């Protein structure tokens, strides 16, 4: 299968690889997927509690090239956005940006889930209720 140029670019030069301290109260961590399914994404964001702006985002992914690209792209997109704006990112946006073929859509779903899971984790740390529709769905 041929990969789109953008997938290859993210694979070769993944953005924002790394980890933030899970213990930091301002860091939200999302860990989604499972090794048995062949894909695990860890997405972390440092969120400013005053402005709700995502100031830093890091990821690590075990998965195919499209999964790596989806999570790399997700970190790029969420940086500088408010929590509210980040939650509006849909997996279909990722599919479009990376020109993912149908068999790779689930990789983008996982990235959307990782965003929700990370923000959910941060909200929990701050005692905020996570509404049902914001929970990771997969």
């Amino acid at each position, binding site marked *: 299968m041929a*990969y789109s140029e953008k997938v*290859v670019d993210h*694979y070769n030069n*993944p953005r924002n*690889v790394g*980890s933030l301290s899970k213990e930091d109260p301002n860091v939200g961590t999302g*860990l*989604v*997927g*499972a*090794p*048995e*399914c*062949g*894909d*695990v*994404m*860890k997405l972390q964001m440092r969120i400013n509690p005053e402005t709700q702006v995502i100031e830093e985002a890091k990821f*690590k*992914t*075990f*998965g*195919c*090239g499209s*999964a*790596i690209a989806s999570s790399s792209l997700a970190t790029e997109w969420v940086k500088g956005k408010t929590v509210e704006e980040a939650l509006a990112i849909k997996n279909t946006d990722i599919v479009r940006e990376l020109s993912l073929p149908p*068999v790779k859509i*689930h990789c983008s779903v996982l990235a959307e889930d990782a965003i929700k*899971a990370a923000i959910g984790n941060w909200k929990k740390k701050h005692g905020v209720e996570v509404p049902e529709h914001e929970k*990771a769905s*997969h």
Partner: protein
Amino acid sequence: MAVKLPIYMDNHATTPMDPRVLQAMLPYFTEKFGNAASRNHSFGWAGEEAVETARQQIASLINATPKEIIFTSGATESDNLMLKGVAEMYREKGNHIITQAIEHKAVLDTCKNLEKHGFEVTYLPVQRDGRVDPEDVRKAIRPSTILISIMYANNEIGVINPIAEIGKIAKEHGIFLAVDGVQAVGKIPVDVQKDNIDLLAISGHKIYGPKGVGALYVRRRNPRVQLAAIIDGGGHERGMRSGTLNVTGIVGLGKACEICQQEMPEETKRMLALRKRLKDGLEAKLDETFINGSLEHRLPNNLNMSFAYVEGESLLMGINDVAVSSGSACTSATLEPSYVLKALGVGEDLAHTSIRFGLGRFNTEEEVDYVIDKMVQVVTKLRELSPLYEMAKEGIDISKVKWQIA
């Protein structure tokens, strides 16, 4: 020293044709184009003679007689014919077939089909090392068993089954033994007499011959095996496989077998040395690699290895100038990891990280060294990117984590 890229190391999928095979075939496309069934002129005779030479070359490689070789369009057809042909011919005798979990789909799907037509099939599990336990075969035998179908060597993990022992059991019980010999014939000694094999499927393109041609060995004595044809027509190949013979392909298959037979001792040594170089090189520079299946009972040209914490498709993407394959789900249309590795009891997490290296006649030490360097580089990079590797390094037991999945 510069190696020529891309490097082909996927010789279980198919092999490049040996130039000597091509040379042997060429005249049969043009001046010697006759139909081997044309009995009345020299064009036909030349074709027939070429076909008979090929029959002899193939028979010699597996210690059979030329009359026991039937030509087909490839091993998928040979597998179909040996199973369906026996099933239909001996239906009165019984309706039970024994096979095993990690056969090629050409066998498994044929068995599934036969089940729809009133046959009962036992799918034996394999042991952790990927081999069938002959005692399991013995225990599965019923009064109604007419056929045992076990592959000689597996196409993913290269593991070799104890065919001689299984053959002995089959013979004791008067049951036919059908063997998918695609990966083994031409690579390791296969002897239909010593192994008590009654039917043996062979493919041209796995042994440096052409695609679209194969053979089926059908035993004629002790015991005589009869087959119901699955293709009806002009009654070629003693009625077992109608259709004008693919003379060029058959010439190529014959020549390929002849070369394999002549060069096997030397080629085996070369393959073992290349494999050792590859395995040692990878293991020296990478931790947490696992070999899938028995190393001892394995084709000399196969290495199937899991690289923990690194998903196979992303690995393939990183070594895109090297052609190998992976058991990862992400590389398959079904998003299921390899059924072969699953049957071995390889955890699904590790199945996703497996790479199959299939060495071949034309690989060199330089190529192996290039592949090692590239693999080490990509695995190291992807492990830096892997949350699982990070967790493992932190001492977290990944199998105990509660994963958040659909």
